[in-house]
């Protein structure tokens, strides 16, 4: 809970709240516009092109110019469209994108057991618009609301390809949202709480050997992070999971019929979601504003902001890198990856982590010591993994053989 809200509220608190909201709003917008430029620039360099270079230094004003251009373009509503829902859809896709950003701790000093609170005008406050105790669930709720923008945009267009694109998009989003949620459970398990501030605080301390940071990517054993990164990319409909707007198949996807400023808003929402997802990854798995503990906090609360922005940039780059280097998935591969690999993997890993934790606390009582229990849990998990892999492999071989025989192959030639 943000400390400045605890007692009664006076005029200064209201000013502080409004200032925080406006600051976060501006950061969110600027970061999004930066991301549009950054993506185009980096993709260009990776593809041996120059990219935007005329508007402003290094073409940095390109996004603004594009925005201005789209602002003055004619707005077109197709005659088959449902006018009300057609107009509503951009709101539904942009507002959840903004709301998720309220959860992100943008800075603050988390070293030496500090909780990241910053003193402004004599008031202690987090550099975070709100810190609801159910933070992670709030994030998941907002990302499930984001589906509606896409779904309704596609439906309201009254046109074939947008409808197909939006149905695909929503099926993809719900498939990966399950994996997204289950991989986050591991973070909750090691933190013991759901609020973003407590998650960052938990990661801020000294980790193994004093040099390796205590970040969740290490504490939860990398797999939840990998699952979250893949599922997050899929949830954003970014390459290599951009089947939603596969231009070879679906024209432009759900926003084909949109033009002018409404199209620009969908575009903005997409990039804002990318920035927010990168920020969430940084917060949940890389300590957010908490830097490596042994480096201390020489700049005070600015240290936190520095680390946060640095890590954010790394992940924004990673998203662009994915786009430039990975080919697009096929739809069947996409669904298989989500349901047959990511979900079982994150569930199994969660149980292993939980088992290790229970054993380490000495609640298991199989062996003589907590350490012995931990070893037993790891051994059992490993055995189950091997057996599971064997069963899965033979099941898949069998299924494949059955299918080949059903397709008219000679049973003897099929091995």
């Amino acid at each position, binding site marked *: 809970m943000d400390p400045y809200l605890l007692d009664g509220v006076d005029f200064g608190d209201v000013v502080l709240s409004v200032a925080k909201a406006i600051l976060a709003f501006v950061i969110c917008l600027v970061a999004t516009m930066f991301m549009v430029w950054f993506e185009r620039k980096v993709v260009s360099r990776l593809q041996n092109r120059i990219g935007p270079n005329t508007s402003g230094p290094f073409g940095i004003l390109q996004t603004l110019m594009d925005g201005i251009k789209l602002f003055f373009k004619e*707005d077109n509503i197709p005659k088959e469209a449902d006018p009300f829902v057609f107009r509503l859809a951009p709101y539904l896709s942009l*507002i959840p994108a903004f709301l998720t950003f309220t959860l992100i701790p943008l800075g603050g000093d988390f070293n030496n057991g500090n909780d990241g609170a910053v003193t402004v005008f004599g008031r202690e406050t987090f550099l975070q*618009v709100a810190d609801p105790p159910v933070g992670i669930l709030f994030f998941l709720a907002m990302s499930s609301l984001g589906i509606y923008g896409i779904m309704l945009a596609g439906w309201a267009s009254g046109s074939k390809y947008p409808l197909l694109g939006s149905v695909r998009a929503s099926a993809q989003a719900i498939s990966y*949202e399950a994996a997204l949620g289950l991989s986050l459970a591991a973070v909750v398990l090691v933190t013991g709480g759901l609020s973003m501030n407590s998650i960052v605080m938990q990661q801020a301390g000294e980790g193994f050997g004093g040099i390796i940071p205590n970040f969740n990517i290490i504490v939860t054993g990398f797999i939840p992070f990998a699952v979250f990164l893949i599922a997050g990319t899929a949830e954003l409909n970014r390459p290599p999971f951009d089947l939603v707007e596969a231009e070879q198949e679906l024209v432009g996807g759900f926003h084909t019929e949109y033009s002018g400023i409404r199209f620009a808003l969908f575009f903005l929402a997409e990039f804002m979601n990318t920035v927010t997802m990168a920020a969430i990854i940084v917060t949940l798995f890389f300590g957010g504003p908490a830097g490596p503990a042994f480096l201390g906090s020489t700049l005070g609360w600015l240290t936190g902001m520095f680390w946060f922005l640095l890590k954010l940039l790394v992940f924004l780059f990673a998203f662009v890198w994915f786009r430039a280097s990975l080919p697009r998935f096929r739809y069947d591969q996409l669904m298989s990856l989500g349901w047959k690999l990511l979900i079982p993997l994150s569930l199994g890993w969660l149980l292993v982590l939980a088992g290790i934790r229970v054993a380490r606390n000495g609640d298991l009582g199989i062996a003589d010591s907590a350490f012995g229990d931990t070893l037993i849990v790891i051994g059992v998990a490993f055995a189950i993994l091997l057996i599971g892999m064997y069963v899965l492999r033979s099941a898949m071989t069998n299924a494949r053989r059955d299918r080949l025989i059903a397709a008219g192959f000679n049973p003897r030639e099929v091995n």
Partner: protein
Amino acid sequence: MSEFLRQYLLVAVFGGLAFGLVAALIGAASLFRPSRPSTGKVENYESGVDPVGSSWSQSQIRYYIFALLFVMFDVEAVFIFPWAARLEAFGFFGLVEMMIFIFILALGLAYAWRKGVLRWA
């Protein structure tokens, strides 16, 4: 108003700002942008050729199955979160409870897998 609600008030204000931004952009653009409607412009876009047939298509049942699977795992996730936050207190008993829960739901996934509905043919 409790401190708890003040927090959500801030979230609501933030949402209001976002709504205001979208409304202002669309509203302001309507003052400046040209409007020269024609019959061609309001046709559906189908790569430049005249639209063919109805624009509505019936979706397939597998989307429904995936949505139902999602409901299952979403409910599961909702129960896993509070459990994970309190595992330290529940200890071994809590672990077994959750294992049973996950096992039963995993059976559902395995069943769907076995019956081939996860296959996007």
